[in-house]
């Protein structure tokens, strides 16, 4: 499986140059790969760089202000060196993305049919009639009732869950190899969330596409991902197969995140909290970026940036105190 990943990101760095000359380190030395048919969860809190990473994959970052280095290999291309024209051919075709806000990502002045048909005609060509048939088929696949009628409706007529399904239908229009889903269920109620997660699982099984799921909800990660990368302050701090991450996390930040979730089986009086604040990324700290908030911190942590080290097969941690179980045994 690891022989030829579908997408391989190496040493990705993204800097934003502000108008005032300030440089923000949004993403630093990120390495990731996803195999065909696998689902990678990208987890972290607001501002950790997870969405910026996905926008870099899609080639959607502003050229004037974002300085991107490293490489993103996908299907024989280095996406960072691919001309815009080719990127446009890839996007919506072999590379697709769904966003958190289904209302703002659909154009309110066109019917949902127009918007799906546009994608199909742009990438596949053919007649409008056949594109329309395919659009109806796609809407049926994402379980939209009476798609023949719904296809001519405008986005505002649909509920939030339906709009998200339309977004998914549009993303699937050209059978993508890689689907990036940025918080696809965050704006939805649990019942709809269940429907959408079920749908994503179904589609993955049917098409064998790989999925990068960006989320801050560890419950969703546990449910649909095979592998997880945890990001903090622009870096990957831990990467592991999903079972291992939840059984023996190897980075204190992951421990803090897991401890701060209210649990169903166990009524804790107090939830774990992560004290302090995310460092200012215009001047990232010299050592470990989590050191100031870490209860396991040592002097050495603040001196040099810790490397991402393999603790056990496929389980990497950017913490010099790993394996963490030795701290509590």
């Amino acid at each position, binding site marked *: 499986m690891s022989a030829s990943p579908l997408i391989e990101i190496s040493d990705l760095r993204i800097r934003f140059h502000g108008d005032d000359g300030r440089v923000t380190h949004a993403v630093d030395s990120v390495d990731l790969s996803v195999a065909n048919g696998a689902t990678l969860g990208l987890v972290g*809190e*607001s501002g950790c760089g997870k969405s910026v990473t996905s926008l870099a994959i899609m080639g959607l970052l502003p050229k004037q202000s974002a300085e991107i280095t490293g490489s993103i290999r996908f299907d024989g291309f280095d996406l960072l060196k691919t001309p815009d024209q080719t990127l446009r051919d890839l996007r919506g075709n072999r590379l697709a993305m769904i966003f958190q806000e289904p209302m703002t990502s659909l154009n309110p002045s066109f019917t949902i049919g127009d918007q799906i048909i546009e994608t199909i005609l742009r990438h596949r060509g053919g007649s409008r009639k056949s594109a329309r048939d395919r659009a109806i088929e796609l809407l049926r696949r994402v379980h939209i*009732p009476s798609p023949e009628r719904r296809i001519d409706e405008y986005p505002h007529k649909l*509920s*939030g*869950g339906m709009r998200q399904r339309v977004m998914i239908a549009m993303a699937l229009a050209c059978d993508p190899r890689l689907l990036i889903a940025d918080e696809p269920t965050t704006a939805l*109620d*649990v*019942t*709809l*969330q*269940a*429907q959408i997660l079920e749908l994503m699982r179904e589609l993955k099984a049917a098409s064998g596409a790989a999925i990068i799921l960006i989320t*801050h909800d*560890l*419950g969703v990660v*546990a*449910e649909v991902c095979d592998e997880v990368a945890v990001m903090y302050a622009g870096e990957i701090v831990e990467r592991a197969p*999903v*079972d291992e991450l*939840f*059984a*023996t996390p190897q980075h*204190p930040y992951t*421990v803090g995140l*897991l*401890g*701060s*979730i*209210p*649990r*169903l089986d*166990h009524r*804790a*009086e*107090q*939830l*774990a*909290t*992560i004290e302090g*604040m995310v460092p200012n990324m215009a001047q990232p700290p010299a050592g470990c970026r989590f050191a100031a908030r870490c*209860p*396991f*911190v*040592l*002097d*050495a942590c603040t*001196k*040099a940036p*810790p490397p991402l080290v393999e603790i056990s097969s496929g389980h990497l941690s950017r913490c*010099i*105190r*790993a*394996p*963490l*179980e*030795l*701290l*509590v*045994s």
Partner: protein
Amino acid sequence: MALLEVEGLVKHFVAERSLFGRALAHVKAVDGVSFSLDAGKTLALVGESGCGKSTVSRLVLRLIEPDAGTVRFDGRDLLSLDAGGLRAFRREAQIIFQDPYASLNPRMTVGQILTEPLALHGLVPAARRPERVAELLRLVGLEPRLARRYPHEFSGGQRQRIAIARALAVEPKLIICDEPVSALDVSIRSQILNLLRELQDRLGLAYIFVSHDLAVVKHIADHVAVMNLGQIVETAEADALFAAPRHPYSRALLSAIPVPKPRAKRSRIVLQGEIPSALNPPAGCRFHTRCPYVVDRCRSEMPRLVADGIGHATACHRASELPSSAAIVPSDGGFSPVLEKLVAAFSGGPEAVRGGGVSSLGTDLA
């Protein structure tokens, strides 16, 4: 006696008017809701978007006027209060909102924001107000020197703390928390939940907690009322509800909670179909269009909320004949023993960690 007693609350919003202003269509946002809340306790209102949970919370504060029903607070009938009485009541019941960015005036300093309620209600003599502001900030875990700053200088979690401090300024007995942690990151969310709990213990506050996050509700609530299309379909002690939900809607809702455990045992009920519109709710039981257990009677006759004697009430014709729901709520099976210890060490701070300052591994890698 209960602190708050709500009986038969109804609110229909006009959705469409004729040319001459006659109402043509109504959204039945809240349709016959009753519950009570004791001092110092937490009642959670849960349900999907549009089920009326936020409308109920605003009706209770009389931020909007109900069409029918009664609300009694500390024995007083709220709906008969005049302007003065209402103002006095507002000192006893406060609200915090989901969006801490939108609920604080950006042109006022935190000190001014917290002084305003003190001045409005004439609670503290002007000279002593800065002292009270400092005390309020300390109460919510912020440093008193921050009183000179403006809301934009704070993070989301800190702003929510300021909103809580403002609510506490008038020493209320009841705080309505409308999705107070939904906009916050996980680690910040746990800080605010801990704070709300701690304040409840210290000050004896009662909360109405409106949320769509059921794991959070399980964590914070004593009692839960599940709402669907303007009506309460089930209400029970939180532990009883999460152990065995009875109403088919509660079952579906609780079965869908994502749990942080790969391969968790679950029997998820995925509801088919869309939520019907509150503009034109279905006849009979309002859940019948999506209910897997529907029978003819459900389509014509609206079920009443029937209590079982130990405070667990369900509005379903078939409540007694449905299959057991003991395994409906997914189980996270607890953390692994290693993770449990790590979380305890994480919360306990540096001294809880074995080896304190030195790590054998740390030295060769650093």
